[in-house]
């Protein structure tokens, strides 16, 4: 697992785990408080319903009592029910129709002791029918309000009913009265819209389920249905709460926490990615730069303006590279000295080789001059070619060795002017193209050494073309980087290029792939470039050409 991945995961865990714990804790606390509040409200709702039922029941009872007292003193009622006067019968039949309005009731029925309906306010035409079930049921409820289904012409209604009795002429009469319950249930509790009261005649669960609610509390209440289902039972006032209210609240909290968690996670992920990238990228770059270092490439730039550990590391690597560069210079100097020793021995050997024939010819001529002075001219003519051959050899040897003797004379140099002058003197303008950058800064180099570098590189490039007319050589100058005073000179050709093996030995002395080559060209170029404080890089590919890149400090 990479350092970046570990850094990323660590950051994410460090952020998300505490946040998740916080969300869980807050949710749990909210849930506990909501549940407690919910229970308190439910208890309050049940108390309110009980009080409302009791108040309504007492109100009905009071109105029935007043009506009973009124009937007990009503002469026409007495004529109708005691004396059986047919002229008073219409009054009796219509009495409840008027009384129900006066009393503000929804249900009102007057029955005699046999349960025969004498007058009905909610169903005027119910007279003479025998309906003793309801008064019996109400008398058995012990004064507690009860619910009953009551017939009307338009259909049955549900009413909260009470009963009361009175006596006229020794005969007992019963008044049953009530108010409509269907308009109350289902209904909202005053001041608390979260709860509703529903009436469940049979199954409270199904009532709640049908309404999409959940049961919060139940309040049993006696109930009597219509014939033939006149077995007293129990209905339930069900306090319901919208099934989604509490759940929805919890879900809302969960959603918000989840959203916060997601947002935080995304931010944390982005932050972790950014941080890990910010930390690991410079390390990766340092690693790449370090990997590119070798003795011939100690020009990596480890400079950094960062004040952190990466900056310190970069600066340490830069110092180490500088030390390596100094060491490499000393090593090159040592190598140069060793090479100079070898060269001196070689020169000594070569010169000796070149002087031996000359000395021999001179000794021969001296002997002829001493022994046969008259043949001296003839012998000289015979041995002249030997002398000339040796001199030519020594001359060539001297010219070759002259190339190995740098004598730096550093001065500001206009690279573009140097390249232009070289191109005009070289006579290869038709093959060599130039691409010279404008406003190129001057570099401090030995002009002659740089000329020798460019002559060698251009010469090698031209030779790599193998006389092909479609080949080309391009000399390009440019700044190493924007704002930098360093100059990069690139000599690129479209010649045969080099193999990897050839490239590996390209900088070795006396290594050549050309017939008649000395094998000193690139070796000299490398040494010259290094002596100029620059770098040399060769990019090549067989058949595609070679790019020699010289970078000189400003």
């Amino acid at each position, binding site marked *: 697992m990479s350092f970046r991945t570990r850094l990323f995961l660590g950051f994410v865990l460090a952020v998300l785990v505490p946040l998740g714990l916080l969300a869980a804790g807050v949710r749990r606390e909210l849930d506990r408080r909501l549940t407690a509040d919910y229970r308190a409200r439910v208890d309050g709702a049940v108390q309110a319903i009980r009080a409302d039922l009791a108040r309504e029941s007492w109100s009905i009872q009071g109105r029935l009592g007043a009506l009973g007292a009124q009937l007990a003193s009503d002469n026409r009622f007495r004529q109708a029910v005691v004396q059986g006067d047919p002229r008073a019968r219409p009054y009796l039949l219509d009495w409840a129709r008027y009384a129900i309005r006066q009393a503000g009731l929804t249900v009102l029925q007057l029955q005699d002791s046999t349960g025969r309906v004498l007058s009905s306010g909610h169903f005027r035409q119910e007279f003479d029918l025998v309906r003793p079930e309801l008064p019996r049921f109400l008398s058995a409820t012990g004064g507690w309000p009860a619910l009953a289904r009551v*017939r009307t*012409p338009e259909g*049955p209604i549900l009413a909260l009913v009470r009963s009361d009795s009175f006596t006229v002429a020794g005969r007992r009469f019963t008044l049953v009265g009530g108010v409509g319950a269907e308009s109350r249930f289902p209904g909202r509790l005053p001041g608390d819209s979260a709860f509703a009261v529903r009436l469940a005649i049979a199954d409270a669960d199904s009532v709640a389920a049908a309404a999409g609610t959940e049961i919060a509390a139940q309040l049993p209440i006696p109930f009597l249905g219509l014939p033939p289902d006149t077995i007293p039972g129990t209905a339930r006032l069900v306090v319901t709460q919208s099934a989604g209210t509490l759940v929805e609240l919890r879900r809302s909290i969960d959603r918000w926490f989840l959203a916060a968690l997601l947002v935080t996670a995304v931010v944390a992920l982005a932050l972790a990615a950014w941080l890990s990238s910010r930390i690991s990228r410079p390390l990766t770059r340092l690693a790449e730069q370090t990997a590119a270092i070798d003795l011939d490439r100690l020009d990596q730039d480890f400079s950094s303006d960062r004040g952190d550990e990466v900056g310190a590391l970069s600066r340490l690597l830069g110092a180490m590279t500088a030390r390596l560069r100094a060491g490499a210079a000393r090593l090159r100097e040592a190598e140069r000295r060793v090479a100079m020793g070898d060269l001196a021995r070689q020169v000594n050997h070569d010169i000796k080789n070149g002087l031996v024939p000359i000395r021999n010819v001179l000794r021969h001529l001296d002997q002829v001059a001493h022994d046969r002075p008259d043949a001296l001219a003839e012998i000289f003519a015979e041995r002249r070619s030997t002398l000339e051959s040796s001199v030519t050899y020594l001359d060539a040897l001297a010219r070759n060795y002259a190339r190995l003797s740098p004598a730096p004379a550093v001065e500001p140099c206009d690279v573009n002017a140097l390249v232009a002058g070289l191109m005009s003197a070289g006579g290869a303008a038709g093959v060599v193209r130039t691409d010279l950058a404008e406003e190129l800064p001057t570099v401090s180099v030995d002009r002659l050494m740089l000329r020798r570098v460019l002559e060698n590189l251009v010469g090698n490039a031209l030779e790599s073309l193998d006389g092909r007319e479609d080949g080309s050589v391009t000399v390009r100058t440019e700044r190493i980087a924007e704002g930098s005073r360093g100059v990069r000179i690139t000599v690129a050709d479209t010649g045969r290029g080099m193999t990897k093996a050839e490239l590996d030995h390209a900088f070795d002395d006396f290594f050549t792939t050309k017939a008649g080559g000395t094998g000193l060209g690139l070796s000299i170029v490398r040494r010259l470039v290094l002596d100029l404080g620059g770098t040399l890089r060769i990019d090549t590919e067989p058949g595609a050409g070679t790019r020699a890149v010289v970078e000189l400090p400003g």
Partner: protein
Amino acid sequence: MPLHHRSCAWALAALAASGCSSGQAGAGGSAGELPSPAPAFPAECVIETGPGGMTPVSVAALDGDDSSLVLRQRLVPPVILDCAGTPHPGAARTWSADGSGRFWTLLLARTAPGAGAAVSAWRDPPAGETLRLAGALALVPLDQHRLTVEFDRHYDGVPPVLADPALSLPLDSSGPALSFAPVSSSDPRDALDAGAGLLRTSDPEVLAYARADSELAVAALPWSRTYVLLAPAADTLGLPADSPGFRTALARDAVAAEARAAEPPFWWETLPAAGCRERKVAAPAREADAIAFDREDPVAAALAARLVALSREPGLSARGLAGETLDSVLRSGLARGIVRALPRRALVPCRDARWPENVVVRPLVDTRASAVVRRGIVPLAVEWDGTIRPVASP
């Protein structure tokens, strides 16, 4: 079959062929002779309010029926039937039939429109439809005041359709008139207190109030309506069996109007076997387990409620509907039965029998309204359907 106007020559030939000179004659006259004066309304059909003869009489216009009281003073059918059913001249001074009893010739009053105008008016609905359902085949104007109606059946007496209000013609009369007295209150007693001269009502409270006022008199009008229960033959609605006692109890206790047990004969029991009632049949109740009634009719509402109370089916209910929709509820299955008012006497039975063929008509109660009249107004004549007209001064 639409009525068509036959040519005069054809009509005259037909009349000659049918022996129009020897037919029956209305109002005491005979065909081809000037009719004799019409008999006066019998005493039982005249409301005498004492000396005075005060006109015009303001009518408390409370509902459609009261409005028709006034409108019908100037719109008169060819024949007027008094409360006993005796015909009297209306828009037609006389009437006569040929020997077949199928061709009836009317001599229109001078104050009535001409025969051509009458024939033209009677071709259009609702008069044209009424005549068609009564069996009329053709209308032929004979001259300016005479016209002949051809029927597809024989009539011994004047065809009742000629007394139908649908055939009323405007009369240019200068006799005593009734006028509107619009009542802003829904309580008819307010109209009486405001001086209305005539009020037709069936409200027992109003009648009791009027009887207590010495300036007012109450006269019972003919039994004009029979309330019936219409229900498919196979559906008893869980009701007790029909009996005189059942009807009597309904009339006595269930209805807040002057009512009696429905008494035969019932005109719907003698409907033609075919070609009269609708061919459609009642559908099983689909949406409502209910007995429907006209929601504007309190008597029908009370009867429907009483039937619901007496039914052995606890789910049955009463449902008030708009009057114009009642005819269709049985066919569409929107109710299991209908309580509705039928005319006590039907001049055109096929028109008034608007229920499906498989429906049973169960008579319940007869009702009638009463006229509250202010003493001293002009005498009033009462017709068969309760229509009241001022009796012309001699």
